């Protein structure tokens, strides 16, 4: 698995990775199981990690991941590279499926981990913490994104995390933080734009 790039060489590496992913998706669209298996190996770690953070339950996270990959298998032909990279598409698909599950159960979102700074120490029972075989590139990428996120102004980071991981609407975030709606929209916008900007440099 290698989702990322060494700091300072972001776009070139990312483009190569995205090209590979697009080729995989095209092959999966033609029912190529080996391509599907390769893409699973590449994506399952980050997608499972996301599902675990949002659901907090290994069994549910695995069910959600199964839904996502079966959907990737059945919908590979409809993937549009103009809309997003395969990675982001799969991440947002996973988030949607997790939110569907939480809504269906009618219970509140439960974010398991605490702050992003100490997330490396988060644990689960049956899950396997990613091994040392994890590539240096992916670690670099995760470190980079975490660095960018943690260096956002705290109110922007807070709004983005509440929106992304807890799927609170801007209205709900405004109500929870006791801030005007326009302020919350601006925080989300500024934070996401900064994240984009740093990922491009």
């Amino acid at each position: 698995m290698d989702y990322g790039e060494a700091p300072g060489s972001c776009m070139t590496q990312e483009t190569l990775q995205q090209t590979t992913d697009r080729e995989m998706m095209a092959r999966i669209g033609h029912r190529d199981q080996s391509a599907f298996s390769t893409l699973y190996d590449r994506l399952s770690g980050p997608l499972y990690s996301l599902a675990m953070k949002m659901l907090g339950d290994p069994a549910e996270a695995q069910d959600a991941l199964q839904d996502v990959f079966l959907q990737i298998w059945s919908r590979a032909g409809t993937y549009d590279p103009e809309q997003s990279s395969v990675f982001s598409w799969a991440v947002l698909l996973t988030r949607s499926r997790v939110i569907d599950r939480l809504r269906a159960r009618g219970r509140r979102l439960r974010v398991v981990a605490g702050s992003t700074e100490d997330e490396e120490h988060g644990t689960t029972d049956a899950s396997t913490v990613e091994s040392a075989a994890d590539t240096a590139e992916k670690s670099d990428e995760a470190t980079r994104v975490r660095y960018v996120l943690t260096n956002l102004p705290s109110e922007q980071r807070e709004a983005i995390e509440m929106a992304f991981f807890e799927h609170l609407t801007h209205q709900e975030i405004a109500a929870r933080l006791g801030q005007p709606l326009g302020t919350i929209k601006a925080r989300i916008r500024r934070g996401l734009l900064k994240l984009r900007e740093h990922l491009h440099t």
Partner: protein
Amino acid sequence: MISEEQQDQAALYALRLLDADEHAAFESELKGNNELRDLVRELREAAGHLALTTPSLLPPASLKQRIMREIAPQQVVPIPSPQRASFGWIPWAIAAGLALFCGLLAVDRARLERQLSDVRAVDPLMQTTFYTLAPSAPAPADAKATVAWQPGRQSGVIRISNLPAPEAGKDYQLWAVDAEHKDPISAGIVRVDKNGVAQIRFSPVEKAEHVKAFAISLEREGGVPKKEGPILLVGST
């Protein structure tokens, strides 16, 4: 030039936070605005990368096996024609007489059994085992459930009826009781509708190749890794 308001909407759109009307309106706006589309794409990428800030975990290897089994093409084995299977021996039986007739019957039966076994190996319906779950206190006496279980695929479907929704803070959880596991294996949360009915597809979290029974218990909301609460429905084949 993209206005600040458009940027606001683009960020909320990328995070899928717009309501249905806003979503539709923004998509209309996107159609005629390449610059805005590019911004949305980049914001989506930024949002996607947020997944990398989560604790790094890997799913168990059994999950990949489960998924690969799901996508594997189903083999189709032609079922032998009943006429050929049933009557192919008749000319021989007539010609050879009663003794030979009895011998051929034995041979034919063995052949049919082999064919049936072959079909069972590849036909999901033939692999399905049914379990009937009966209520035990404190479940209502008319509560019931049926499980159709396919061990080869490690998945099944449960249909529940007459089981009222659990109290707040509780969930029903399905368990597979497997001969090779000390504890029941969780097969997930099952949620009934207002009529006490549910039909849910499930897969146990661990491989269960020798399931003796299925059971439903009342657990804490969100479920538990190991059964804690009372059994409401239980049954074997």
